[in-house]
């Protein structure tokens, strides 16, 4: 059901891990829904100089995370923001239909990480007391509710 490229990224995922002292963190999904992606970025000169991910989830969750990091490493923030979940799926040669909505979240996590970076930068320039930014996942924007009933299971009945 998965393509060879998806299986390649699942079996040997690129950029796994967590950047120490990241410039931005994005976390999306919930354990109840079966997928959580946490993505950390380092930014320099308006480009993503490093990106790493951790994922709890199925083959598609891991493979899309791996591919998303490959797509944006070295990219400008604008280029990275233009990467969508669909871009990631296309780069993998497609995903099974039922995985498109539930496990294809890596670009969303990336966008949250960039938003986090931009927010920190703005806070740092405008407000010197903003020292606790990014201290924990709880304060991060979370793209999907943790409520199990709210798991996005579009497409199948």
């Amino acid at each position, binding site marked *: 059901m998965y393509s060879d490229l998806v299986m390649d990224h*699942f*079996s040997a995922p690129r950029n796994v891990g967590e950047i120490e002292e990241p410039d931005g963190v994005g*976390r999306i999904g919930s354990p109840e829904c079966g997928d*959580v992606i*946490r993505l950390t970025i380092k930014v320099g000169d308006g480009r993503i100089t490093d990106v790493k991910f*951790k*994922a709890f989830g199925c083959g598609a969750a891991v493979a899309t995370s791996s591919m998303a990091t490959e797509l944006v490493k070295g990219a400008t923030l604008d280029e990275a923001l233009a990467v969508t979940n669909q871009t990631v799926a296309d780069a993998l040669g497609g995903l099974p239909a039922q995985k498109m909505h539930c496990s294809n979240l890596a670009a969303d996590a990336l966008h949250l990480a960039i938003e986090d970076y931009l927010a920190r930068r703005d806070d740092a320039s405008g407000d010197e007391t903003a020292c606790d930014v990014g201290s924990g996942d709880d304060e991060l924007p979370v793209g999907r509710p943790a409520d199990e009933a709210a798991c996005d299971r579009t497409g199948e009945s």
Partner: protein
Amino acid sequence: MNAIYFDHAATTPVDPRVLEAMLPYFSERAGNASEIHAWGREAHEALERARAQVAAGLGAHEREIVFTSGGTESDNLAVVGLLQLEQPGHVVISAIEHPAVTAAAGFLERLGWEVSRVPVDRTGTVDLEALAAALRPDTRLVSLMLANNVVGTVQPVREAAALAREHGVVVHTDAVQAVGAVPIDVDELGVDLLSLSAHKIYGPKGIGALYVRRGVKVRPLIHGGGQERALRSGTENVAGAVGLGAAVELALRVLPETASHVSALRDRLTAGILSAVPDVELLGHPTRRLPGNVCVSVHFIEGESMVLRLDRVGIAVSSGSACASQSLEPSQVITSMGYDAVAAHGSLRLSLGRENTTAEVERFLEVFPAIVADLRAMSPLSATR
């Protein structure tokens, strides 16, 4: 490296002896069992021999066996066939039935029936007090599986049937996972309807049977030429029925040594996993479970990932994770047992068969801890919990 198959609860390969019994009925003995010429008579006799084999395996009479296309059709024929033309009343099922029963009961709801889903405890055993309390004057059917397909817990069907029969309620059991694993006698169990399938017991796919106790009135779902005493029209699947008969007979002949061989492997696997991998728990009943079932929940990681990683090293297992299912819902069996969805996402089922070996179990135990460690290193959950 040889492939290792630990997914016998999903399906089993056809035993060569079963296949050998079936083969003539595809070619030189391919008559239509409803015809009166020599070819037809030969097919008819084979069909009836198979029926007698299935009946003998259940302690039933031949006339009580209806051949179907498999477990799902048998469950539908039992649940829907019994009640579809009756005045809507009440049906009791357990919370952990196979989708074939759950969805058939859901269909009855659309016809105006009320359905009670009796809860199970943390071991996956149905709550008999709750079942007794659920019975009403208008209850017409209790359906309780003999053994669960996910966690392997063997259900107190005999006790449940006794409760139901006090109230004159018909009892159905889905025995698809139990046949060949535990001895079955319909009178001893006290059930009126029992579903079984060939492909779970080294027979072919596409054939199963429903036991219907004499005097219990079931109406057909499939209408036509009146085969199977008008309960299941359609030209008889003679080769399939011969395969089912042979598979049942073989399964019962080897049941004692199979159960002891397979349960020894199961116990070694369970102990090996629990000792080698931290943060794992066994799901299902510690002792009242199918001899070949190991079901665990592995914390912090997700089932489909484990299934895919094991597949890469040639080991076939399954998971109750939402991600591993077509419906994208976590196993309702596991959540009904009081575990959260996360436990269901991290579930892994290993179901053993008679051809599995100790060497295969040891091979699994060699590779599994590293796979778990690798996936946990990638998981954002392990560090934060």
